[in-house]
C-alpha cells in the first residue's frame, strides 16, 4: 500500500451508504455491462438491418454493416457508463431523490484507497491521476506505432509492415497522439492541480469531471478495435470522400471522435466554470496563476471548436450508414465541406494543445529563476490573441485543395499575424529568464528545450503559411516535421516539464532526477535529429504518409529513424522514472521548489476538500524578490 492509500484509509471510517447501488459499481461492472449491451445491440442490429442470402450477409450492403458496427460501438460506450454508475446521478435527479451526503462522500472516493481509481470517483485528484495514466498509455501506444513507421522507413523499400498495416499505422498514430496531446496537460494537471491553485475545494461539477474521463476511457477500446476491422486508411484527417468509402475500421474512428468530442465539451465546460466561479476570496483575475489562465483559454477554445469536427464525423457516419450525400458530388455533396468543417476545428485544436504546455512552462520559470513573471499581461494577451486568431486561419490548410483561391491572401495574412501573439509568449519567457540565475532542476530543462523547439516549429510554420512556398512544401515531410516541432516540441515538452514540476505534489515523491536528465537528453537530441532529417527529406520533395521513397531520400530517412529510436529510448526511461519514483522515490517535502502558488501550501496526500479552510489571497503568485 502506498503512502497515498494509507492516508486515505486512516483518516476516518469509509462512508457506507447502505443499499446504494453506487457501492457495487466499478470499472469491472462497467466493462461487463458495456459488453452485454454491445452484444445485444450487435445481435439486434445484425438481425434487423442486414439482409441474408442462404445464411450469409449480403456483401453488397456495407452500409448495413456500418450501422451494425457503429451501433455496437456506441452501445458499448453507453453500456459501460451505465455499468460504472454514471447515470445514477441524472436518474436520481429525475425521480427527485437526490444523492445523500453519504453517497456523495462515497463517490468522492473517501477512504477507498486504490479502489477509487477504478470507480466513478468524483475527486478531482483521482481524475487527474486517471488522466495521467491514460495519457501515458496513449503516448506509449502512439509512440510504439511511430517506431514501427520509422522502422519501415529506415531504408528505401522497407517491408517491416505491409502497405495496409502501414496506412493504418499512420492514421492510428496520428489520432492517438492528437487525443493524447489534447489532454496531455489539461487532463492530469488541469484536474489535479488547477482547482488547488485557485483555492477551490473541488471542481464545479465533480460528477461531470468523472464523466469526462470515463467517457474518454470508453473511446480507447473503440479506437483499438480499428485494428481488427481493417484499420484506418485515411490518416488522422479522415478526409471525405475517402473516409466514406473506407472499410469497417473507419467506423471506429468516427465513433471515437464523437465520444471524444462529448468528453472534451464536458471537461471544457467544467474547467471553465470552475475557474470563473470558484476562485477563492481575493483571487482577482490578475492574481490567477498563468497555468490556470492558459488552461482555461485552451479549454474555452475547445468548447466551440470540437462540435464542428463532431458534425463532420456525424455526416461521414450518415454517408456511410444511411446513404446521405454530404460529401458525394453525385448527390450534391462536396469534399470541400468536410475540409472546411475539419479545419475550422483543426487549427484551433493546435492551440488547444499548445497553450496549456506553454502555460505550464510559464508557471515553472519564475519559480526557478526567482523572479516575477515578466509581463503577466503580455502572456495573457498572447494566449488570447492566439485563441482569437486561431479561428480565422483554417483555410491555410486548403491552399492546394483549390477552395476559394481568392481568399488565400487573406488567410495568409491572418496566419502570419499569429506570429505576433506567439512572439509575446517568447518575450514573456525570455524576459523572465533575462539576467536571472536559473536553478537548473529537471523542470527548468524543458523551458530551454521549448524555446529552441518551438522557435523552429514557429518559423517553419511561417514558410507554410506563405501561399507560394506552401505550393511546394504542402503534403511533404516538411509539414510533418513542422507540426511535430510545434506539438511535440511545445506541448509535450511543456507537459513533461509540468510533470517534473508537479510530480512531488501528485505522488508525494520526487521524480528520479538522474533518470530524468538522461531521458531529457535522449528525447531532445533524438527529437531534433529525427525531425531535422524529416525537414531535409521534405525540402527535397519527399511526400508524407508514403511507405516507400526514392533512393535520394535514404540518408535523411536513416537519420530520422536513428533520431526516433533515441526519442523512444528516452521516453521509456521517463516512463520507468515515473513508475519507479512514484513508488520508491525520495519523499518530497510539501514545497520542494519554494513556489508561491497555492498547491504548494497543502500537504501530501492532499485532503479530500484540499483546504481545511479556504485561503484568502492578498498578493500575486509571482512576487519573488519583492520581500514578504
Amino acid at each position, binding site marked *: 500500500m502506498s503512502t497515498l492509500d494509507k492516508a486515505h484509509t486512516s483518516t476516518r471510517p469509509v462512508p457506507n451508504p447502505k443499499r446504494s447501488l453506487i457501492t457495487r459499481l466499478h470499472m469491472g461492472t462497467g466493462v461487463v455491462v458495456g459488453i452485454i449491451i454491445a452484444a445485444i445491440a450487435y445481435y439486434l442490429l445484425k438481425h434487423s438491418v442486414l439482409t441474408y442470402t442462404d445464411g450469409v450477409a449480403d456483401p*453488397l*450492403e456495407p*452500409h448495413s454493416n456500418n450501422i451494425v458496427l457503429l451501433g455496437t460501438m456506441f452501445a458499448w460506450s453507453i453500456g459501460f457508463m451505465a455499468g460504472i454508475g454514471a447515470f445514477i446521478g441524472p436518474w436520481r*435527479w*429525475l425521480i*427527485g431523490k*437526490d444523492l445523500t451526503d453519504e453517497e456523495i462522500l462515497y463517490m468522492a472516493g473517501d477512504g477507498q484507497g486504490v479502489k477509487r481509481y477504478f470507480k466513478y470517483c468524483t475527486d478531482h485528484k483521482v481524475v487527474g491521476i486517471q488522466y495521467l495514466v491514460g495519457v501515458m498509455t496513449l503516448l506509449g501506444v502512439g509512440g510504439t506505432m511511430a517506431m514501427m513507421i520509422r522502422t519501415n522507413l529506415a531504408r528505401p523499400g522497407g517491408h517491416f509492415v505491409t502497405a495496409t498495416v502501414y496506412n493504418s499505422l499512420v492514421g492510428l498514430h496520428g489520432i492517438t497522439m492528437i487525443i493524447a496531446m489534447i489532454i496531455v496537460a489539461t487532463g492530469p494537471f488541469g484536474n489535479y492541480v488547477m482547482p488547488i491553485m485557485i*483555492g477551490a475545494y473541488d471542481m*464545479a*461539477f465533480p460528477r461531470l469531471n468523472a464523466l469526462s474521463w470515463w467517457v474518454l476511457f470508453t473511446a480507447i477500446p473503440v479506437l483499438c478495435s480499428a485494428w481488427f476491422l481493417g484499420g484506418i486508411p485515411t490518416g488522422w484527417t479522415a478526409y471525405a470522400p475517402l473516409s466514406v468509402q473506407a472499410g469497417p475500421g473507419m467506423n471506429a474512428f468516427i465513433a471515437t471522435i464523437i465520444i471524444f468530442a462529448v468528453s472534451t*465539451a464536458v471537461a*471544457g*465546460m*467544467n474547467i*471553465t*466554470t470552475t475557474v470563473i*466561479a*470558484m476562485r477563492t476570496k481575493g483571487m482577482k483575475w490578475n492574481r490567477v*496563476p498563468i497555468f490556470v489562465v492558459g488552461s482555461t483559454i485552451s479549454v*474555452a477554445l475547445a*468548447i*466551440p471548436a*470540437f*462540435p*464542428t469536427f463532431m*458534425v*463532420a464525423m456525424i*455526416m461521414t457516419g*450518415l454517408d456511410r450508414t*444511411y*446513404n*446521405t*450525400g*454530404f460529401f458525394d*458530388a*453525385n*448527390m*450534391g*455533396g*462536396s469534399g*470541400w*465541406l468536410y475540409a*472546411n*468543417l475539419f479545419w*475550422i476545428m483543426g487549427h484551433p485544436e493546435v492551440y488547444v494543445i499548445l497553450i496549456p504546455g506553454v502555460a505550464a512552462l510559464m508557471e515553472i520559470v519564475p519559480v526557478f529563476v526567482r523572479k516575477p513573471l515578466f509581463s503577466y499581461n503580455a502572456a495573457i494577451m498572447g494566449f488570447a490573441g492566439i485563441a482569437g486568431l486561431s479561428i480565422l486561419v483554417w483555410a491555410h490548410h486548403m491552399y492546394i485543395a483549390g477552395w476559394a483561391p481568392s481568399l488565400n491572401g487573406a488567410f495568409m495574412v491572418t496566419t502570419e499575424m499569429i506570429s505576433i501573439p506567439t512572439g509575446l509568449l517568447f518575450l514573456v519567457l525570455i524576459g523572465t529568464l533575462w539576467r536571472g540565475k536559473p536553478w537548473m532542476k529537471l523542470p527548468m530543462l524543458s523551458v530551454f528545450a521549448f524555446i529552441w523547439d518551438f522557435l523552429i516549429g514557429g518559423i517553419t510554420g511561417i514558410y507554410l503559411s506563405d501561399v507560394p512556398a506552401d505550393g511546394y512544401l504542402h503534403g511533404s515531410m516538411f509539414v510533418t516535421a513542422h507540426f511535430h516541432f510545434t506539438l511535440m516540441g511545445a506541448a509535450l515538452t511543456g507537459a513533461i516539464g509540468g510533470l517534473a514540476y508537479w510530480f512531488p505534489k501528485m505522488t508525494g515523491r520526487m521524480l528520479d532526477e538522474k533518470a530524468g536528465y538522461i531521458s531529457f537528453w535522449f528525447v531532445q537530441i533524438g527529437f531534433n535529429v529525427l525531425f531535422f532529417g524529416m525537414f531535409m527529406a521534405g525540402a527535397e520533395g519527399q511526400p508524407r504518409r508514403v511507405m516507400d521513397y526514392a533512393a535520394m531520400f535514404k540518408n535523411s530517412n536513416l537519420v530520422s529513424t536513428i533520431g526516433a529510436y533515441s526519442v523512444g529510448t528516452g521516453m521509456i526511461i521517463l516512463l520507468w522514472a515515473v513508475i519507479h519514483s512514484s513508488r520508491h522515490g525520495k519523499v518530497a517535502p510539501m514545497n520542494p521548489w519554494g513556489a*508561491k*502558488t*497555492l498547491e504548494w*501550501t497543502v500537504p501530501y496526500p492532499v485532503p479530500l*476538500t484540499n483546504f*481545511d479552510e*479556504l*485561503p*484568502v*489571497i*492578498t*498578493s*500575486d503568485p509571482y*512576487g519573488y524578490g519583492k520581500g*514578504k
Partner: protein
Amino acid sequence: MSHDTQFHVHHDSDAAVGRRERLGVRLLIVADGSFLFSMIFSYFYLRNLNTGGNWLPKGVKHYTPSSAWQVAIPFVIAAICHRLGQENKERRNLTSIATLIVLLVGGYLQWKQMAHMPFLLKDDGGVVTFNGAYASNWVLMAGTGIFHYFLGAFIALGILIRNRTTNVSHELDVWRQRTAQSWFTWCAIAAVLTAFTLSIV
C-alpha cells in the same frame, strides 16, 4: 502567493451553486451553438454550391417551409410555458405539465416528419438513398431536433417530478428554474434558426 485563513466556507451558498450551474449550462449551449452553426454552414454551403444540380434534383419533393416551423413552434411554446412557471410558483405544476406535453407533441411531430420523408429513393433491392444534398441536410437537422426534444422532455419531466417531491431550498430552486430556462430558450432559438434555414429551399 501569500494567504491567510480567515475565510472559512466549504459549502457554497445556494446562489453560488445555482449561478455556477447556470454558467455551466450556458457553456454547453456554446458547444451546441457551434454544432448548429456547422449544420447551417453546411446547408447554405451545399445549397450555393449546388454540385451537378443535385442540391434538389429535378422532380424530388421537399418539405414546405411551414413544416419546419411546425416543429419549431413547440419549442417556443415550451420556453414560454417554463417562463410563466418561473414567474408564478403557484402555477408551476400546471406550467411544467404543459411544458412536458408540448415537448412530447413537438417530438412526435418531428418523428412523424422523419418517418415520412418525401425525398427518399428506394432501389429494387430495397436500399434507401437520400436524394440530393437538401435531403442529407434536412435529416441531420431533424435528428438534432429530435435530440433537443428528447433532452428537453427529460428536463421537463424531472422538473415536474421534483416540483412535487423534492425538498429543495427556495433559492436553489429559483436558480435551477433559471438554468432550465436558459436551455429551453436556447432550444427555441435553435429551432427557429433551423426552421428559418429550412425555409430557404
